[in-house]
Structures are given as structure tokens and as C-alpha cells.
């Protein structure tokens, strides 16, 4: 998994020699819940093996702050969207493909977390952005009053790009290695090599004989409760 994280606050100077491209990050929060997206900031994306992302964003205007509070009061949604693009350099020409990727978070949780959000961009194997997610920390809505001037001015955003993880395959090589090591160990001290039966046959044989004599008529007698241990395993 390649994750490059940048905690960016508005007003930070963005690296000028950043060799990537920029796509708009838009957001929408309306009291009537009809999405009308406007610019929130610009995502600086860099392709290549090390997917990096920087976000430069503006402060919320006073009007926006009051709208956000109003939306939070009616339990509306705060939506964000990014255009579907590819991070790969060779796909730059076709990167402006049709459509957007959208997601949402409850406006109240954004307000109550004082605009602390975590935005994750997910890419597929070839570097296309396939999804975006936003969560706030904390994520709950408890109805806490928020002083707008202080807390709702700047976003405290953590943004990252996540590429798919390569799923593991059956690990045969380490297993065989381990087996060989165990074999070697056994080979070194022949005392160990003797099996349990070989060591204790003089006790086992009379015991088995005794049991056979005393009657093994009821073998299947009580299979009933084997589940106790298995059941508890969860």
C-alpha cells in the first residue's frame, strides 16, 4: 500500500516545484439538500509510483459558515466530489474522463469536529481514481454548540491516496524452509527422534491390553459434547 499523507491547512504555501497536476475538489451543503457544488480547494496530484497528494484550500466564508451551521441543524449532508481522473502520467491526455466521484458526510459531524476531516482517494491498479471517502474525527453528532468564528474557519484536513493492496498468495517457500529446519533439528539429536510410542511402549501396551480385556463394548458412548471446545473457539 502506498500512502502519502500531507496534513495541509489553508494558507500553507504549496510546493512550487511539485510536478503533478491539479484537479478541483468541490463541496456542496445546502439547506434544501439539492447539491450545488462549488470549489473547496485544489488537489495537487502526482503520478508515478509514489502517489502523492496535496490539498490547498480556502477558508470558509462567513456566509458558508452560517449555511453549514444551518445544514447541520436540519441534519443535512455535506457532499464533496472530484472528477474521475487517472494518476498515471501517460494517461494525462485522457484523464479528464466524464463524471465525478461523490461522497458525503453528515454536516453536523463536520461542524462538531471543527472541520477536522479525513479525505481518502482510492485508486485502482492502473491509477484511476475510483472512489473518494470522507470521515470526520470524531464522527458523531451529539448536538454540541460550536463557536463559528473560531472553529469553522479553516479545514483541518488529512488527505491521502490509497492504492489497492496486493493480496497474499499461499506461502509455500517459508513453510518448506521451516519443515526442513525441523527435520534438521530432529536429525541432530537422535534422542528426540524416537517417537512417543517408541519411548513408552512398555507402559502403553499393558494399558491397551487391559482396556481391551475390560471391555470396549461401548465405544461410541459419549460423543455428545465434543463441541464445547470448538464452540468456544470463536
Amino acid at each position, binding site marked *: 500500500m502506498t500512502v502519502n499523507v500531507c496534513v495541509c491547512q489553508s494558507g500553507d504555501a504549496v510546493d512550487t516545484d511539485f510536478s503533478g497536476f491539479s484537479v478541483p475538489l468541490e463541496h456542496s451543503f445546502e439547506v434544501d439538500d439539492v447539491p450545488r457544488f462549488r470549489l473547496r480547494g485544489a488537489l495537487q496530484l502526482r503520478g508515478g509510483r509514489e502517489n502523492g497528494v496535496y490539498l490547498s484550500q480556502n477558508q470558509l466564508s462567513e456566509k458558508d459558515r452560517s449555511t453549514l451551521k444551518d445544514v447541520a441543524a436540519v441534519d443535512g449532508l455535506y457532499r464533496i466530489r472530484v472528477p474521475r481522473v487517472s494518476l498515471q502520467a501517460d494517461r494525462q491526455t485522457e484523464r479528464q474522463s466524464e463524471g465525478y466521484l461523490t461522497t458525503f458526510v453528515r454536516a453536523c459531524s463536520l461542524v462538531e469536529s471543527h472541520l477536522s476531516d479525513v479525505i481518502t482517494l482510492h485508486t485502482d*491498479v492502473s491509477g484511476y481514481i*475510483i*472512489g473518494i471517502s470522507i470521515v470526520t474525527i470524531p464522527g*458523531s453528532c451529539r448536538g454540541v454548540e460550536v463557536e463559528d468564528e473560531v472553529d469553522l474557519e479553516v479545514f483541518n484536513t488529512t488527505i491521502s491516496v490509497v492504492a489497492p493492496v496486493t493480496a497474499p498468495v*499461499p506461502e509455500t517457500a517459508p513453510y518448506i524452509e521451516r519443515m526442513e529446519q525441523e527435520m534438521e533439528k530432529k536429525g541432530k539429536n537422535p534422542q528426540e527422534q524416537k517417537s512417543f510410542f517408541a519411548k513408552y511402549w512398555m507402559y502403553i501396551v499393558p494399558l491397551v491390553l487391559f482396556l481391551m480385556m475390560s471391555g470396549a463394548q461401548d465405544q*461410541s458412548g459419549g460423543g455428545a459434547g465434543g463441541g464445547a471446545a470448538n464452540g468456544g*473457539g470463536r
Partner: protein
Amino acid sequence: MAWLVVRLAISVSLLYTASAVFEDQVGKFDWRQQFIGKVRFALFDTHSQASKKLLVATDKNVFASLNSRTGDLFWRHVDKIGPEGHIDALLMYGQDAVVVTGNGRLLRSWETTVGGLKWETVLDTGSFQAAALVGVQDFVKYVAVLKKSAISLHDLSSGSQIWVENLPDSDTVQYQTIYSGGNGLVFVFGVVPNSHIVIVEYKIEDGEIMRKKSVEAAWMSSLESSCTVISSGILLCVDQITQSLYTLQLQSAEQTEIRQIHLQTLDLEVASGFQPVLTSTQPNPAQPPLSEFFLQLSPDHHILLQLKDGLIAPLRDFNPSYLAAFATSGERTVAAVMSPKNDTACSINLFSADTGRRHLDTTIIYHMDPNGGKPNRLYVHAFLKKDDSVGYRVMVQTEDLTLTFLQQPGRVVWVREEALADVVTMEMVDLPFTGTQAELEGEFGKKAAIQDGLLPMVLKRLSSQFILLQAWLAHLWKLFYDARKPRSSVKNEVTIDTLSRDEFNLQKMMVMVTASGKLFGIDSKSGTILWKQYLENIQPDSVFKLIVQRTTAHFPHPPQCTLLIKNKDTGLGNLYVFNPIFGKKSQISVPALPRPVLQTLLLPVIDQDYAKVLLLIDDQYKVTAFPSTKNVLQQLQDTASSIFFYLVDSSQGKLSGFRLRKDLSTELIWEVVIPTEVQKIVAIKGKRANEHVHSQGRVMGDRSVLYKYLNPNLLAVITESTDTHQERSFVGIFLIDGVTGRIVHEAVQRKARGPVHFVHSENWMVYVYWNSKFRRNEFSVLELFEGAELYNSTVFSSLDRPHPPQVLQQSYIFPAPISTLEATLTEKGITSRHLLVGLPSGNILSLPKMFLDPRRPEVVSEQSREENLIPYAPEMPIREEWFINYNQTVSRIRGIHTAPSGLESTCLVVAYGLDIYQTRVFPSKQFDVLKDDYDYVLISSVLFGLFFATMISKRLAEVKLLNRAWR
């Protein structure tokens, strides 16, 4: 079986456990039913009088022999699925059955008594047209196979090819049928549509073309459907447009003109738009066919005609008649005709073929099933009785794939429901309570009771308790009575009236939906079909979704199931609502669905009649609620903001989430687009709604707890790469939250290919894929954990769970291919889980989930030992004793359905494919049940013994004390 719940789990150390079934448990709680599918060819063995064999070949590529007295299978051969195993032709002569399979790829001869293969020949390539037995001098020696461009002759006893000849002008002429009348010649008929017929005559000995002629026939488009050979080599054709019959003498060199006989001259007329059908019969392949034949003029009009001295004369007109068939016994050929009698019954009569005269006392009354389809095929088995009259039995196949075998005077000998060979989906529904149980339920259930007052309440309670006591006494008496009888005779028949829930809810109603549109209600204990219902006008390959809207728990409201039937192409659907216990269609008005249905959603919201609300989303994202009473709409309005659903468009790779608005419109809230150029969504699965998770976390070796990430809204999305090169192909696994659209986990299994089978449950997901690099099947397990602390332990909300879960994954080699995968399910989720793996061999492997645990350690440590983790081994074992169906293999297993029972230890399993198999599994053994052979006598005698011993010793001690005091 006497079950007894013991509350305490018994200590493990004492026990000898067995995971497989014991020999005496075979068939005790499991059953299997074998099916064959829709019959395409059926031949009765007329070789000897006493023969009971009926050979069938079906559209499921099954070739089988049925016992015509019982309907049971003698033997069955299941060939490959698809065109490779398609049975093209079935011919029988004596003890041999010759089968052409795989579009003329293989020619096989089977021995019909035991079903052994006598010989097999690989035929030359070319698409199959026809096959026929060829006789010489009253003795059938060869079989001829006609391909698109060649004809070959094979020896019937060894299969060796006698000769093969290319057909002349095969690029322009479509050769379609073949005929031999036992005179040393084989005729091949071809047609150039709307131009002429080509007849080629081959010599049997060496395949030399004796004669080739072409005859003008501008009206002809296809030979196969409109022509047949009758009498001593006369080609007879029928055409609907010219309303004529045509005859052509095959062997005369002079006749090069086809003779036209207007149907008008016979006072006949073909119904408009109906393709007339000619049926002739050739009782012995070494002799020419009879000169009598049937002509079907309309769906319910047949006529028996005879060709005599070049003239066609009607023998008997059957109007109305549904079906007609010839049958031969010895030297006598008869015709059986099925005619409607009244609305619910048909009568089948026997007529002699050469005169058309009716045989006396040969009527068979066939009662049509009011819940079934119309009869569409008739197979007749004629035999000579002792008094030399002809007797017969018939097998009727109906539209709903029921095979009914009847004998005079209308006795149904057996019935086979072949629709069950193609089960699409199923549910298991609890059986209703008995009258007494319902009485008790009703007492607490009725709201009216509150108004009754105290005294009536007390009286009601007393009366219901009295009824319970009465029922219990009756039950005890029955137990006592049955105990004295031998075990075999106690078997009581299950009927729809005696259905009631057993003590531990182990007996359920299996509601099965089949591809042909027939619904079945099957008792899970015995496999008896309790009800069936055929839904007419179902398009082939429709999509079915079965939803249980109301369970049996809401007495007196009947349980309710809803079946959504969706047309695959148009997406238009309709609902069928029925009672799953009795199979009756419900009277509830069903919403009309004028637009294609994209998604269905069963909400936990219930209406005043305790039916869960079903939401149907159409292609304009409008929502229809069913039921849609005022109460429901009110509830939906109240909860609208918390109702989310998702849609998948796999053609565009788009997943989108919607939220319900108060006015039942929807709004788009999230969108995830997986580009289709790279990968394609192949499957998507949520979790089962009736699943319970008992423990929130797992206790680790160091006594800390690892909490599970239990997100009920999680969707598992599987994709496959469009690039199928073995180095670059991959399988994608996405775990997406269905409410927020958040991608919780995204993984790529490289160098992997489908088909992917997967199970998504609790906090884990298991999938199987094909590793294209190592060319083997592999299992992979993903488990999600929240970590050592729970974010919010009281309630889970997708909107408020900011931290991504920890994902653990491990893969294993599975040394067998896989057909299907399912997980066991129990009432409370305490029992450990097993995976049920359906193998192509027909076995069902019950694989403990313990083996699929990503925390299996590479190196064993003290802590992992404490936690009971099995050390990692890359290869998954397959142990024979894990096969839950021992030797009862399920052919072409397609799905496994699991359902919880009332016992926590027990999970009900139904596997379906060509066969149906039902059993119970005990993933953690039967920890809440005493064994069958539990020694009640011993334990009670020990108890009594101890009791009396205490009494006696107490008395003795008292005496002793007294004596001592006196001393």
C-alpha cells in the same frame, strides 16, 4: 429420535468424537432426490414383455434408465454441461441404445440393463443432422450418422466405421434427414430452400452413390419439420402456405415431379399460423414404415390418414385432440390419442393404426393438475396381453416438466417432478404451530385481551392450560403406543394437514423456485412435495428473487412469501405473493411494476400485519413500497433519512448509493466508478440479514480482546480483469460500505482468474479463485478487526465509524476445483462456523473456518497455542470424513442453502443442482443434544440405586446410633 437438551457442555476430555456420520445414521436425517431434467427422447424397452426399462435422454445432457413401474432410476449418466454433452439422438435396438452426443462428436452404444458402455467412436467433425438405424434383410446391423457434409455408416455391434462419404454439393444443399427401409439402400434428403429437394441414394455395402436426383419444390424451406417417409419409400411432405400434401416415390427413376394433393380435396384445412406436423411410424428399422400417419392441423386437431394405392384417405378424425402417438407391440401398431374430456381431465384412447378403429376398454383418464401445466408430450408403451389384445401404458410430459406415468383405467403409477432438476433459488420457512401452541400464542398476542377484564383472562388462561395438558397427555399416550410397535411401521406420512413445528424447529418448509416457473413446497424432513404451483407465461431465463416477508411467527397472520420475477432482457418484473406453507396465492393486491426493477430492498420496517416492507426501485430511481398501506408510508416517512440503498451497473462499472426522501423519491449520495477498461464487476454480495454474531471480539493469547469489525452494511465486490493473459490477469476485491460508499478495503489478487466463489459473513470474507500462474485453486480469507478498542460498543453506524478497520489476509492452496461455496448458519451464532464447499465430484466438504484464519501463525508461539490457532500450512486438507454427504453425491451442484434450526448446534443444509440433497450439520458437534444411544436405563438405575442406598444406609446408621446410645 429422542432429543434432550443439556444445558452444560460436557467436558471434552472424556469423549470419543466422530465428525462423519455413523453407518446407522445414514438416511436418518438426510435425503437425496435425483432428477434428470426435461425429457427430449424417451423409448420404452419393447425387447421383452416383462421389461420395465424406460430410456430417456434429457436437455440436461442426462441419459438414464427409469423403472417404469416405480419411476425410480435404474442408472443415470450425466454428461458434460453445455453443447459438448448435448444429446443429439437416441436410438434403441434390442439391448443396445445408441446415443449421439456433442453435436455429432461421439457415437456411443450403451448396454441398457446395467448402463454399461459397450463402445464409443469419435466421429469426424461437422455439425450433426440426423441418425438412423439401418437394417439389411430384417436385421439391424448398422447405424448411419448424417453430418452437414458427410454421411458415415457404423457397425452396430462394434462401432467401427464401415464407410464415410462426402455429400455432393454440401455447400449449397442442406442435408437434413436420413431414411433406410431395409432394402440395402440409405437415402439422404437435402434441400435448397425455396428451390428443390435433393435425394441421394447410397449403397449400404460400400457407400457408393447409386442415384442422385433433384426434385423441384419451390415451397419448401425445411425438410426436417415438414417431411417424413411412409409406406414403402414414399416421401411425404406438408406445406401450410399451399395447403397441400406432397408425395414422391423414392425409388422410381421415372418420377421426377413431386405430386401435389390439395388438402381441400380431403376436406381438411390447416389452422392459420400453425406449422402442420406429420407423424409416421417405422416399427422396425429394417422394414419400411407403415402407410398410416398422423397429420396435426392445429394445436388440438389431429387426423389419422392412410396412403393406399397412391391415394391418401382419412381413417379417423380426432377433433379435438391434444396429442397423438404411435406404439408398436409385436406385429401390431396402435395409435394413442389424448382428447379433452372436461376442464380438468383428458381421456386417452387406443386405436388400431391400420383401420383407425377404437380398441374397446382402453380409456385412460388423465386428470390435469390444476396447479400444473398443459400436457405437451405423450409416450406410449404398448404390450400384448395374455388374450392377445393390446394393452398400454402412457407417460405424459407437461409444460411444467412433470412426468406422469399412467395405466388403465387412469391409475397414476408414478409422478416425477423434473422441474426440480433446475432449482434457481430457495428459502426455508418455519412450519406453523399446532392448534394448541397457537392457542397459547393467541392468548398473549391478541390486543383485545386487555379489554376482556381480569376474570375472563384467568378463565382463558385456565382453559388454554387445560388444552395444553390434554395435548401433552395425548402425546404421551401416542409415544407409549408407538413405542410398542416395531420402528419401521411407525413412519407416519407427512401431509399438509399434519404439518406442525417440531420441538426444535428442525423440520421446515423448503420453498423452491425452479427455472421453468414452477414453485414447490417440500417438507425438509422427508423430502415429500407438499404443494406445487406452476406459474404460466414465465419467460425462459427469467431472474427470480424470493423474499420472505412474514414468517410463521405472527399468528394468526399467515406467513407470506413474495417472488419477484424479472425478465432478463427488459428488466420488467412482476410480483407473485403466496403462502409458503400451503402454496396458495395470496389475495393481497400487488403493485403494478410498469418500469424495469433495478433493486429490491427488504426493510426491517413492518406494517400493522407484521409483514416486512419491500422496496422496489425502478430505473428512474422511484421507489415502490409493498405493502403500501398508510401505516407503512407513515413509517417510511419517519425513517426515510436512514434508509439507504445501492445500485450496481456492471456494464459501466458504476456503484452508486441513494438515500430515500420523505416523498419516496431518492437522491444520489455517493458514487464509485471502477473503470471497465481494466476490470469488470462480476459479483457483489452483502451479508445475510438473518445472521447473528455471538461474540464481539476474539480473545487473544495475552488475554486482550481483538474486536471484530462488524459492519452490517458492508458489501463485497469482486472484479475480474479484462486482460486475460495469465501474467497480467487479476481478481479485485473491494469492501465497500453500502451506506457511505466508503471503500473500506481494496485488494488485488494478482495472476488470478475467475470464476470466483465467495462467502461474506460476520467480519470475514472467503473467496476462491484460480491461480493462473501455478494453475491451481486457491482460497483466501480476509478478516476485519477494529483493534483492541471498540469505537462505539453500543451501536454500529456507518456514518460514525471514522477509523478504517485492520485487515488481515491469508491464502491457501485448495487441492480441488470448486462448484459452490456457502457458510453454515445457526440460531445464535455461538456454534463455530464451517464452510460448505460443493465440489464438482458431487461431494460437499464441510471445512472448519478454523483452517481459514488469517491469524494462523507461521511459527508456533506460546500465545498462539493458548489461542488454539493451527500453525500455518499452505495447503488446505481435504479429509474424506468431512464430506457431509458420504456417498450421496449431488450431481452438478449449483447452490447450497443453509438455514438455522431451533437447536444452536444444528444447521440445516440443502444442496441443489441436478439432484437435491438435504441434511443437518453440527459444526461444533451436538453439544446441546444427547446421543441417540444415550443409556437412559443405566443412568436412571444408577440414580435410583444411589437413592435407595442412601436411604438404607441412613436407616442403618440410625439403628447403629441408637444401639450405641443404649450401650
